[in-house]
């Protein structure tokens, strides 16, 4: 994932999953970039840290695909920030990525647990 993989002391995000994580984060409420990174970090118990170098390009990608929309709002501390909201298309995309991801995990799990006795 770009620069994230260079500081490889922390476990890397599986490639292709960042978009999914961001979209999922946004299902709960609209957030700005910092808020998204913070949320992912907290929910993963500090295991997953999203580098800003990965976050913003990913957000741009999502914007271009119209899976999220962005607008400028005021935060509680009265600063201007850009808030990202999930769109209907984004929701659909999230569902499809989730199901793909689950299939992948299930398959890997089957391999790891070895052949079943028939």
């Amino acid at each position, binding site marked *: 994932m770009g620069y994230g993989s260079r500081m490889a002391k922390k476990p890397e995000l599986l490639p292709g999953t960042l978009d999914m994580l961001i979209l999922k984060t946004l299902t709960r409420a609209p957030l700005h970039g910092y808020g998204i990174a913070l949320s992912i970090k907290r929910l993963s118990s500090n295991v997953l840290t999203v580098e800003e*170098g990965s976050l*913003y390009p990913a957000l*741009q990608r999502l*914007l271009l695909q119209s899976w999220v929309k962005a607008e400028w709002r005021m935060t509680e501390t009265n600063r*201007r920030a*850009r808030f990202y909201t999930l769109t209907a298309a984004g929701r659909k995309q999230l569902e499809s990525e989730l199901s793909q991801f689950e299939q992948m995990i299930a398959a890997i799990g089957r391999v790891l647990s070895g052949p079943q006795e028939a």
Partner: protein
Amino acid sequence: MKKLAILFRRGQFHSELDEEMAFHRAQVEQELIDRGMTPEDARYAAMRQFGNAARLSDQSQELVSFRVETVLQDLHFALRQWKKNPGIALAAILILALGMGTSLSIFGFVDAALLEPLPYANPGRLMSVNESNVESPRWPLSYPDYLDWQRLNKSFSSLDVYSGAGYLLRTPSGVKPVQAERVSGSFFRTLGVHLMLGRDFYPGEDRLGGPDVVILSYGDWIDRFGARRDVVGQTADLDNRAYTIIGVLPQTFSFAPGGNAEFWVPINALSPHEHSRTFYNFGGIGRLRDGVTIEAAQAEMTAIERQLQRQYGITGRDLSANVVPLAEIIIGDVRPVLLTLLGGAGLLLLIATLNAAGLVLVRSESRKREVAVRRALGASRSRLVRQFVTEGLVLAVLGSLAGMMVAGGMMRPLAHLVPKDMASNMPFLEGVGLNAHTGALAAAIALMAALLLAVTPTLRLSFNDVRGALADATPGAASRLWRKLGANLVVAELSVAVVLLAGAGLLGQSLYRLLHVPLGFDPNHLATLQVMAPGTAYKTDEQTVGLYREVVRRISRLPGVESVGMTSMLPAQCDCASDRIQFPGRPYHGEHNEVDERHVSAAYLATLKTRLVRGRLFTDREDASMPGVAVINQALARRYFPGQDPIGQRIADDEFGTPHVWEIVGVVDDVREGPLDSDIQPTEYFPLNQTLDHGFSLAVRTRQAPGTLLPVLVSTLHQIDPSLGVSDEATMNEQIDATQAALLHRFSAWLVGGFAAMALVLGGVGLYGLIAYSVSQRRREIGIRMALGAQRSSVYRLVMLQSGWLTLAGLAIGLVCSVGASVVMRNLLFGLQPWDPLTLASVAVLLALVSIAASFLPAHRAASVNPTDALRME
């Protein structure tokens, strides 16, 4: 779409992103401070964590950037490069401009002449309808035949005739001869032409005795009538009769067989001859009915004509009918010439583009190192490709723009160069210029050139890898391919150049010989002009002869004048006034004895300084009251009186049904009465005082420069009678230069010469490009040779030998082809063999010179290679 939107608000996007990331950084900073860092440390930590902000913004931006900025960078780079090394770029642009300009101009011509439809309604159904016989497939119609054809036929919905006429127009500044066309009443309706002003002829106006009405041509309306809208209803004085103007033709109208007629009158009066069924004076057009084919129409008209012949007992000519599409007559002769030109221009364009691509390739070859270094530094393939593509596009665009300017500049002068007779066959020559069609072609060519120039250097990239280029081991596959392809191309270009040069040389020589062909008279110091005496003022024989005598008397008295002569037609014009003669006392078996006929004054032949061989010339006293006399030329004497003395013998001919007999009183040397490039025909001269022509040409021999005499002649004639139509004043030499034969040869010589020059330039540049390329490939080899002790001269020899082989090959092929081509061109050659050794030798020499010049520069560069540099650098 979103990308586009972002592109346009790039600035805003950039700053928004910055703001967003600044916010994020501030939050991180705040968090760190909350955790207990000092504000200083917090800020540094946040920045470090955030990474390279610029890089981030670049990366994010790269996703959405439209590459416009990189394109601008490429452009800037390219322009800087060219400023340092303008040679190749300029050469490429020049070549493109030449090739494109020429082919565009030619296409403009062809487009105007062939592709624009004729300015008539549904021109495909318009036919040219003529009588025809074995010798002349397009024989004019006679008026009675026309009336019967109109009555009896079922193939044509309408049938019309036309005939040229000359009138004397009375203008405020004197009497001017003008060209007119007499047409039948539905002529314009048959063509489907709508008048711009006023009305067409009414149905009855072309019956005998109808009113004197006239329709003006557009040009005439502008020139003589000041484009005034109230011209309808005014009168024009033609031949001392008042014709009421009833309408004006549209600007787009032209009728090639009618020449440049200004006045269009209905045929409502026939000369006595024209009443006769055997007087053939009218051209015919017709509109086929729907569903009728040309063959059916032809068959029907032939049948009708045969029936008429039987009915009226017409013998002596076996006439049938001839129906061809009108377009054939108007365009037919010109089509093959134009198509050949188009082919030649296309070839030139192809060669030019390939040459330009070759030059670009040479250039890219010398930038190998730069490319390799850039790739080593991390430039992506696509970025490099974009660089080259941009450069190629810029070259193509600049070249195309230059090409269009060249074309624009060339087309009008070329149009003016076309000889008038050919030009009147091309109705839309006026419209030649940059228009929709040529613009579209220009765009297409530019695109093709752009593709070629952009793709060529990138081909090199794909065949090389980074290390290979830096170490420059062996030449890659691409360069081998180019060497072979390029060599063949150059040989082909040189051959084409040889063919064109040989053609130009032959045509040039032909032109020279044509203009120096023996004339049989002395054309220098002769002033000529045309005179038209109105029939209304000179009705009787005495009046006409009196005019002749007065003209001679007055003009002879002018200072510097040595002698004055008059003739029905000046020499070197055409063989078109001919006569069929028989010989009384000889058995006649229907032979066709056609000779040139001229009516001349007594002093004419002497004025021309033609040599009298036997007998005597006319005297002024021999007029219509005396028996007919004739003078013949040597050719006639040889053909019809071989081994005899023609003096005292007789010729009989048939002037409009009235037989005449002429006694031969003298024989003169052959005068070239016909075109310069035809054989001299047998010619008979009759005394003007006996034939009493109203229209004649004056030839005046003067001691001073003939040009200065012309205005005086005109005013003298006007003093004699202001109603005389005086026109076409020129010296004899000018008349000869303006004949169709001279013009055609001159036009062809210039045209082929122009092509040849261009082909030579292109061939030379192509050769240069190839040699330069191969030298740059072989630098290492040359370095080694020189390091091993080869002299500079041997390097020169090496390079120039390579160029020599190519030139030799091109020359050999070219010479063979050019002999073949000149055999095809035989008709245009005059007094030359197609394999004229002088021409071919000079072409070979010229080519050798060009090839030496082209290969000199690369040879020089090769020889000045420092061996150690060459060895080390590679």
